């Protein structure tokens, strides 16, 4: 049997609405993954450091505050700078369509908007590992 998938669930920015992040973390854990939840108000630097230390394959970012255009590109840059491009990034939150396309163009593996099913999110983590 393969080792369980390790995922970092992170909540960047100043927003404290962690309902979504926690629900996703639990769903991934129930799907047999090892989930590291960073807690609130993580800077991109803290998130990438945690991803390195915890040796995760996937980072899930929950952003509801509209700050995604400032935060996500910074995370992607840091991953490139540290040669961690094998780590896939999945973003969930209130992300307008055109921003979602832009984030995917920057290398984000997938963007989930409100109403996405837990199944779809769990599956996309698996796909991220496979690709």
């Amino acid at each position: 049997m393969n080792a369980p998938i390790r995922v970092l669930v992170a909540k960047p920015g100043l927003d404290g609405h962690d309902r979504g992040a926690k629900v996703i973390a639990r769903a991934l854990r129930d799907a047999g993954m090892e989930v590291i939840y960073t807690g609130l108000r993580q800077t991109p630097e803290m998130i990438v450091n945690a991803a390195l230390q915890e040796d995760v394959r996937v980072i899930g970012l929950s952003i509801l505050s509209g700050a995604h255009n400032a935060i996500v590109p910074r995370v992607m840059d840091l991953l490139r700078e540290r040669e961690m491009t094998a780590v896939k990034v999945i973003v969930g939150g209130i992300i307008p369509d055109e921003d979602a396309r832009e984030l995917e163009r920057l290398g984000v593996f997938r963007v989930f908007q409100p109403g996405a099913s837990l199944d779809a999110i769990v599956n996309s983590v698996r796909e991220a590992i496979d690709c």
Partner: protein
Amino acid sequence: MSGSHGNFATLGGIPVEACYGPEDAGPPAPPPGQHPCTRGIHESMYRDRLWTMRQFAGFSTPEETNRRFRYLLEQGQTGLSVAFDLPTLMGYDADAPLAAGEVGRCGVPVSSLDDMETLFDGIPLADVSVSMTINSPAAPIWAMYLVAAEKQGADLSRLSGTLQNDILKEYIAQKEYIYPPRPSMRLVTDTIEFGARHTPRFNPISISGYHIREAGSTALQELAFTLCDGLEYAGWAIERGMAIDDFAPRFSFFFNAHNDFFEEIAKYRAARKLWAELMRERYGAKDERSLKLRFHAQTAGCSLTWQQPYNNVVRTTLQAMAAVLGGAQSLHTNSLDEAWALPGEHAATLALRTQQVIAYESGIAAEPDPFGGSYFVEHLTTELARGARQYIEKIDAMGGMIPAIESGYPQAEIARASYEYQRRVESGDAVVVGVNRYRGSDAAGPEILRIDSSAETLQTEKLRLLRARRNNEESTQTLNALKRAAETNANLMPPMLDAVRAHATLGEICAALKDVFGTWEERPHI
């Protein structure tokens, strides 16, 4: 809400039988206006005065938000409600490094007295009641508001409005905290004490279940944790040496108006009954105003869907009806586009019109507590009150809400409830129209309000000019005086007002208090 296999229950899981009768309703509650006010806090409710239509607004810059406020007042809105941006909510100025990317996005940035004056430019604060959703930095923001009002020539004793100032629910649910719980409670108590002396018509606190519910709690948990928070605030004020009837009449509450129509109505009725009873039992309150739970309601943001957004108008209407049928004193109705972005002007107007239709066309406002005596609603009221009493006993046994928060108890209860609900959505057991059933084709999305980064540039430049223009020696002195006062037991509102008058910024005031109080971080827990 129907469960699978023919079992019916409320959204919060209270079983619902096919038919209730007189034996389920219990003895009739006294008429509206009479203790314990289960049926409403006023004898004639909306026949004398409608609820306040108070739409929460704030975005981009103080100038832009001022324009929206004036527009809403022109459209017949009867009170203002300020949404602050995340940096302000966390006590950071717009030019702080951590504010980057967040200025003006979720609300209006207010870093200085100048910003506060701009926000209310041309709006007479002596006449308009203003609610401010601010918690950890509530004291300095309120100080800015009071000084701005003074500068308009308003008499502080005439000001009416509400400061949210409910730090306990931040630790429990919304998580916008700065300092550890105990110094935070001291700040809240300072504002309650200051308000009792100087602003008798201003509510210094709005004890909020709204955010607890948005974080995923059940109606029962929302009810119980909110009342526990209220008891904690009252206990601290009494400990300070205040008499219950000197401050409790100015306590206000804030509840969610969620999807389950009857459970919500019953929740408000149970809240009034329990608060009246608890204030007598625990604190010997005698003034009937201390016993009366006044509340603002907001429809449930978390119930809004991104898919088929026009369905949100219907959800909001039903939720608003529950709030009115439950006797709310003021109400915010959400806009249909809020799962997409901050409300655009068209959507915000429609949300206000929804309240106006309920108020003037539906006939609901003519009769106080129309569901009083309904076997089902009375049964649900009793069940919720009973369940809340059990939670309150549990929190008491932990030593009150602060030890409960420190142990993570309410946070874990809410996380469990929210995950269980999400699993029910996932399985299709809980139906969300347009999301997991009747998906059809989505209508075109609403036109959304986009906030660009020019707000950040503008606000940063304003701060640069302010720091160059003000007397920096004076503002530093007032900040040092504030720190010295924070090390004693003195009420911090007077030194806070001095700092604001000397144009110390929000970030500077909050940083000064961090030096004395330290900061708080929650243990990450899934």
